[in-house]
């Protein structure tokens, strides 16, 4: 058991690191999109130099005239050199992709040229920054020059909150409908539940949330808000009402899926021999069902519940963007839409989704062993 856990954890880490590495290398090999405004661009690039992703060269029309601020006079190049460097970069099509220049701002008379380091150097710098300083870089678009990971972690509570609400909403109903439809198989009630399942399985969550908005916001005259209310502006009750539509939209399809699985599992268990044995021993039908059948059918359900959390989380992407919920998914989409990509925010949210996804997988794997002793974990073939 201990070996198995260690093995799984190591494996998860290998996957995590390799996926983050590939993401980093691919994203950072693409052209850079620093902030649009010159001052912000300057601040951002200077920060990149400090963190070790870029190198900077200073130039001035009057190299001798300036000293002190930027170190010795040797640091300053002449304008001829400046033009030469820019020409070279232009020939390589690197201007505004990997090479950036900043003309003097305000009182300064210093011209700057920032050059991106090779990807390998950047990668190791990044590893060092993340592991030692937990520095994921700063945002270039969403909230300029603010820590990118802070942006994501600030949104995490809301995203997790909604997903936990969905989990709390769908599990009881899923169990209820699943058990009813398995026990009363082929009855009228079961058929109704089957239709319900069919309906929600074939309706994209996206469409479902739109239909809910039509129903609750348009037809019922803004009974529920058509967009997620902003905290601070709305009062507590109005804010709480904003959760109804997203939780319903994510919860009902989840209920349908869960009911279907539990029904299949429970009907199989009900026909199994140990339930028959229990009845033969003298248990009533009810006792046999409650003590033996239902308990046993729950075994494979626990990992499914845990696993569904990661699924809900990736589904909340759509939810957040349709219902304007200021969560991680929406921020990620903002970083991704409209051309000028915010790489550091994308990296941070990739890390967030990877970690949650992979650790859910890990917990599911481990829970199999804890719940079902028949699964001998870590055993050699």
């Amino acid at each position: 058991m201990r070996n198995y856990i260690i093995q799984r954890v190591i494996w998860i880490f290998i996957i995590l690191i390799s996926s983050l590495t590939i993401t980093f290398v691919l994203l950072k090999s693409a052209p850079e999109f620093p902030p649009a405004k010159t001052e912000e661009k300057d601040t951002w690039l200077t920060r990149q130099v400090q963190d070790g992703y870029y190198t900077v060269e200073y130039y001035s029309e009057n190299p001798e005239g300036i000293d002190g601020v930027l170190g010795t006079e040797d640091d300053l190049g002449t304008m001829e050199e400046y033009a030469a460097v820019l020409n070279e970069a232009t020939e390589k099509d690197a201007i505004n992709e990997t090479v950036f220049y900043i003309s003097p701002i305000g009182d300064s008379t210093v011209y700057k040229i920032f050059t991106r380091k090779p990807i390998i150097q950047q990668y190791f710098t990044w590893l060092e920054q993340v592991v030692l300083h937990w520095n994921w870089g700063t945002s270039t678009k969403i909230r300029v020059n603010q820590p990118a990971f802070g942006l994501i972690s600030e949104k995490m509570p809301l995203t997790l909150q909604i997903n936990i609400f969905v989990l709390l909403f769908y599990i009881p109903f899923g169990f209820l409908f699943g058990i009813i439809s398995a026990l009363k198989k082929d009855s009228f009630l079961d058929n109704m539940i089957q239709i319900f399942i069919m309906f929600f399985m074939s309706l994209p969550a996206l469409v479902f949330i739109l239909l809910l908005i039509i129903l609750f916001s348009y037809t019922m005259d803004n009974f529920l808000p058509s967009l997620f209310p902003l905290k601070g502006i709305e009062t507590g009750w109005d804010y709480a009402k904003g959760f109804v539509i997203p939780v319903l939209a994510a919860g009902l399809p989840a209920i349908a899926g869960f009911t279907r699985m539990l029904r299949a599992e429970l009907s199989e268990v009900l026909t199994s021999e140990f339930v028959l044995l229990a009845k033969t021993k003298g248990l009533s039908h009810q006792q046999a069902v409650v003590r033996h059948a239902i308990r046993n059918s729950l075994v494979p359900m626990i990992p499914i519940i845990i696993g569904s959390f990661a699924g809900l989380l990736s589904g909340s992407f759509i939810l957040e963007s349709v219902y304007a919920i200021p969560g991680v998914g929406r921020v990620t989409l903002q970083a991704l839409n409209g051309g000028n990509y915010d790489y550091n925010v994308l990296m941070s949210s990739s890390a967030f989704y990877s970690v949650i996804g992979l650790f859910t997988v890990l917990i599911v794997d481990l829970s199999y062993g804890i719940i079902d002793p028949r699964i001998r974990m870590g055993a050699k073939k």
Partner: protein
Amino acid sequence: MEKNYSKDYFTLVKDEERLQDKPLKTKQLTYFQDAMLRFGKNRYNVIASIILGLFILLSIVVPMITPKDLYDKTNSALILLPPRVPLVEQLGILDGTKYYKNQTVDPTTIEDDSVDGSTELGYPSLGFDPEFIDFDTLENYEITGSTVSPYFVGGTNELFVMVNKTAYSIYDSEAFVYGEGDYLLIDIVEMDATGVLEVYFLDTNEYPDYINDTSWEYATLLDTITSSNVTDEPYRIDLDNTVFYDENSNWSYDSGIFFYRYVLDNPSEIGADSVELESIGLYDINDQERYYDWGYDLATYKLYSTDPDTENGVFIRQDAIMMAASFEYNVYDALFSDSLAIYGKTEYDEVIEQNPEMLDAIIDCQVEWAETDDEYQYVEQYCGENTLWIFVDEDGGQDFPITGVESIETKTILGRTYYNYKVYENGRYSLGFETIPYFVFGTDVFGKDLFTLIWLGLRTSLMLGFFASITNIFFGIIWGSISAYYGGQTDMLMERFTDIWGSFPQITMISIISVYVGPGFWALYIFLVYDGWIGVSRITRMQFYRFKGREYVLAARTLGAGDRRIIFKHILPNALGTIVTRVILSIPAVIFLEVNLSFLGFGIGNGQTLEIGPLSLTGTSIGVILNDGQQQILAGNTWMIIFPTLIVSILMITFNMFGNALRDALNPQLRGSE
């Protein structure tokens, strides 16, 4: 002990007969015949498959037969037309009418009973023609709101001071004339005790340029109202002679304005300190009203602060009531009805020249017609009060570009006379339709036919699902079969690779693809394919493990067949049925994904074209249609959501049923079973 039997001991049985296979008593069926038989057993699945086939056919045919103008071009005249379906419209649904809610009532229409008897109900006049409002469905109700608009009446107005500020002021929007013995009545509903309301007066005769930084210097403080003064009765301020007496001007012709300044003792902490005003009125000595501002008039009072750093706030209207109407409006009839237009003489003559039959159809409205005349009924029906002449053919139809002429204007410029015809233009002709069209699913925000757009979007989805599946099958089979066939170390390494590749977070992949490829058909394709093949390779691997130990594989190897031959000629055909059904079952998920991604903006946008080899197709996606539709929900144009939803849902249900039926039919274990 050994027994010895003589040869005679044995006799040959059936020596004369030849041993042969006996003919089967049952009918022989090939694998596919049997599969088809079992497929046809389940009625529901057959129906689902037929619907699915119909959908696929429609998605190919509809975009081909619809005129390209209707779905490719923005048509501003036709935007947001509701659905209108032939035959069904007789039932009163999908008949091209649209239900409007919360439309501001034009108060002048309430008394107006010339249109439809005396309804005593109001309706909006702007943008709506009362002729096409269904008065049976017209309802009036009140909406409470805080909009500063003359349509909103009543309510109170609340003056707030912002956080960290100490005061804020309002003043009359217009100067007033006052006289001796006037008094001011201020009806205050509520005032927070943290501040007081100061009333200032400024003589505008003396200081015509009254609103500038120096106003306060010339304004006189009349009174200070504290919260203890607030009662049910309005607070009264008598205008004092000492304040108002002005040597330079006559009492009775003087004018001025009042300032109302809410001042706090300390800077506001949470910005909730306020004074709520009901009305402000000025009365003369005989209690005659000079002005009385409440509701909207009070809300139009201007805001003022001497120093924005210390004085700032908001003036918010509350509980105002608007009369709103809801009704059904016949959008099609309104759009395609005759409308007044100005034609020049040459233009008019051109129309007549192109439609010579119009000359025969002229009926003069100005002549006195006798009731016995054939044309009398048309004159009564179509001629307006001032109409000069109309065009009506013998059957009473008005199928002409112009249905009548109301008046002719003449203008003489530089000795030349120009004629302008004020004509009734036929709405259908001006929009290019011969009859009122049927947009069965309505039109979208660009005036495109939604019916065609949906099939176009479906075509994109299906094409994407099809291409992605083919690619996934191709790579999945190669990967899975190699992995399983060689087994051992190779299998282990290849499996670990798919593990890592498959656990890549999708959002990361979307990011990378967007950065490198940019949104569009190929971005979606790559996204669906990059890990889609893993599923196929897993199934292939499982199937291969099942078959690779079989005797026929051993036999083939003994006969000298190479690896490639064994994989592709012997094992794969056996495994193919299972693999293909699994892939077909995965297509709905592909369509789901495509809809979602297009909605988020990663797919095919409006008006993008799809280049596949020599083919150039106009592309859109159900996701994009839904995205456009989402903006229209609160405006009541819900058909843009409902119809795509309906089609996608039906497609999903039928696809799943078809897949399940196919899986059951192709399952060799069920062969021959009833």
